[in-house]
């Protein structure tokens, strides 16, 4: 299984962009108000730093993925603990994303369709993709879907141009203050932080050493589009209504009204957004199956898909309502734990220990 740098770029972009756009604007806006774009800038910078750690870790041992890396760098036991922490992240985020996806579909367009139907279709799709070619088929899908998703975001924004009111951005800074902006940074940063999955993806690259720029550009592209989309949503519907809505970006596309006959644009943007959820879920299914298989030393990782897919489905039923799935998970696990530990501390630890080890081994060999 080998993938190209461009495919990694698209995978990271899609994985980051889709969910950040939809899920983080409200929580971010509730604290940063009209300065949400500043929050987004900070979030982008923070994640670039994370990406810096991550890409440098992968360069240490280019042929190894996260599971092997942490074993090599941190030794058998600590390595296992670190891997477990990541497995927890993957095993919980996948059902949550699936559930959030179902919630969006139910709230916005198909209010009466049973959850199971929507979930099952998505699950079968990602199982099929992952099973048929592993990371290669996911990568190829994202190469095709990526530009379409970007185009959808641009189209939705272009069509909103007649609704804008720039005064919604004023006053800058005064209403939220540094505290509000900092707090508003957390949610988008934690969603953009999916670039840590590059740790798993890098070893599949044809040239793992040259993968770093693609990861950077993936993060930059995602952060940039999320930023202008948030800006656009802010100036179309304003800071009074938007923080109270679940999915502000779709609300913005719902406000679109062109020439008196193009209205209620949201189904189109939702349908295309589903593509980004699909890529994200497929990547997670792949890395959790592949990672678990390696962790448990199972030779045929595809067996794990059949084990994990039902688990995802069952877990996705756990949240009893939309706020448990969307905000509780985000605010109680993802932001306070996954962001500082999985995305910043552990990559940093791997980087530092790995560097020291390599220097030692070099000095020994000399």
């Amino acid at each position, binding site marked *: 299984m080998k993938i190209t740098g461009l495919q990694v770029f698209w995978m990271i972009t899609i994985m980051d962009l889709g969910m950040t756009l939809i899920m983080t604007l409200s929580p971010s806006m509730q604290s940063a108000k009209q300065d949400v774009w500043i929050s987004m800038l900070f979030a982008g910078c923070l994640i670039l730093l994370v990406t810096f750690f991550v890409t440098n870790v992968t360069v240490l041992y280019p042929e190894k993925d996260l599971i092997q890396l942490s074993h090599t760098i941190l030794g058998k036991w600590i390595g296992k603990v670190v891997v477990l922490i990541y497995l927890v992240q993957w095993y919980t985020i996948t059902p949550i994303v699936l559930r959030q996806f179902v919630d969006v579909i139910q*709230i*916005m*367009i*198909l*209010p*009466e*369709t*049973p959850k199971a*139907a*929507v979930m*099952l*279709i998505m699950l*079968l*799709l990602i199982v*099929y993709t992952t099973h048929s070619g592993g990371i290669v088929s996911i990568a190829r899908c994202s190469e095709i879907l990526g530009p379409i998703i970007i185009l959808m975001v641009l189209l939705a924004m272009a069509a909103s141009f007649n609704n804008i009111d720039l*005064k919604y951005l*004023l*006053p800058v800074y*005064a*209403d939220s203050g540094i505290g509000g902006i900092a707090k508003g940074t957390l949610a988008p940063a934690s969603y953009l932080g999916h670039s840590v999955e590059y740790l798993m993806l890098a070893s599949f690259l044809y040239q793992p050493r040259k993968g770093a720029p693609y990861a950077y550009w993936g993060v930059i592209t995602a952060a940039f589009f999320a930023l202008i989309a948030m800006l656009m949503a802010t100036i179309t*519907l*304003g800071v*009074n*209504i938007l923080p*109270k*809505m679940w999915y502000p970006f779709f*609300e913005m596309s*719902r*406000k679109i*009204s062109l020439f*008196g006959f193009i*209205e*209620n644009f949201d189904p189109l943007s939702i349908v295309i957004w589903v593509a980004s959820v699909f890529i994200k879920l497929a990547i997670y299914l792949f890395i959790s199956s592949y990672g678990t298989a390696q962790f448990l030393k199972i030779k045929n990782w595809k067996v794990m898909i059949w084990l994990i897919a039902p688990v995802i489905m069952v877990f996705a039923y756990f949240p009893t309502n939309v706020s448990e799935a969307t905000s509780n998970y985000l605010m109680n696990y993802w932001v306070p734990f996954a962001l500082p530990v999985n995305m910043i501390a552990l990559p940093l630890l791997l980087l530092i220990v790995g560097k020291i080890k390599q220097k030692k081994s070099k000095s020994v060999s000399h």
Partner: protein
Amino acid sequence: MILNRIFFVSLISCLALLTGCWDRKEMDDLALVLASGVDLTDEGQVEITLQIALPTGIPSSLQSSGKAANPIVVLSAAGKDSIDAFDQLQQQMSRRINLGHRGVIVIGEKYARQGFDRILDTLLRSSESRYNSYIVTTYGTTAKEILNSPYQLELIPAIGINKLQYNDYSLSIQIDKFIDALSSFDKEPVTGAIRVTKHGSKQQGFILDKAAVYRSNKLVGFLSGDELKAFRLLTRKFDGIHLTTQMEPPTKKQKGTISVQMIKAETNIHTELKNGKPEVSIYFKAVAKVLSNDTNMDLSKTINRVEERFSEDCHKAIMGMLSRTQKKFKADIVGIGREFHIQHPYVWKKIKNDWNMRYPEISIQLITDFRIERVGRTQAPAQLQEN
């Protein structure tokens, strides 16, 4: 392997084909609501009126002869809140109520004066609700009466209201702007106001010629005539506004009026804090073109005088409108609070909660500047007899 694939493909295609079935809604099982109205009954309940399009009643272009059935159905029911009233309505309808095409929401005056409640939340919460529906308040009548009154230009009266609003012939406000104003501290909501026009005893239709002013969620009054124009000018909703002034005293041949059409209007609101009190200066700049001249002036020479006169007129109208919103309505519909919020954000934090009370007391200065850019094809009126 092949069997496996066939199994997969068939399973996925099955699911893909079946997704629509759970909440499928056929066209002839839907009652497409084009406008809804809200009134207050004497018992204090909410009365919802729906204007529903009947597709079979709309004659196709081929079917020219023969009288078509009425293309709309209007139904009303009262309940504890909108959902309760909708239930009452649904029980008498064989088709499912669908709000996806609702373009207009009509608010009865009595209901609005008592306070806009109970139905407000559903305007955005339901997945069928749309931002681009227009909201209008009735003047001197009920929403029920508006929705029941015939309208001759359109087959469906609701579409008439919708188009009147869409074309900006009068003040037009969409739901999101209304709710945005309601939910913010720095401005008060307004809507267009609609009333029934009557000729003799016969009902003719409706007219949208006023603006309803809200203070918080309660209707407090209406703006009309010059005040409405002034409000639209000041808030840059100037599309299609015509102004007429008495330029000269009437003579035997002419009445001495000049009318212009607005091309551009700009407002700059500057706020200051003096001795802890907000002071506001408004700079209003307008550009217009002359449409009619019933004086014996040659506009190529006297344009400055006309500009001055219009500038004075605007000044008078805008000040009149502002003092009415301050003294009578006590509602900051122009959004002076918003400018204050932007220009003095830290002071605003302290006073935003009682902006409502402060607004009537602030002093407002107004400077108007009126330019006439074009005068049409003629210089002096062509019908003038030259001495």
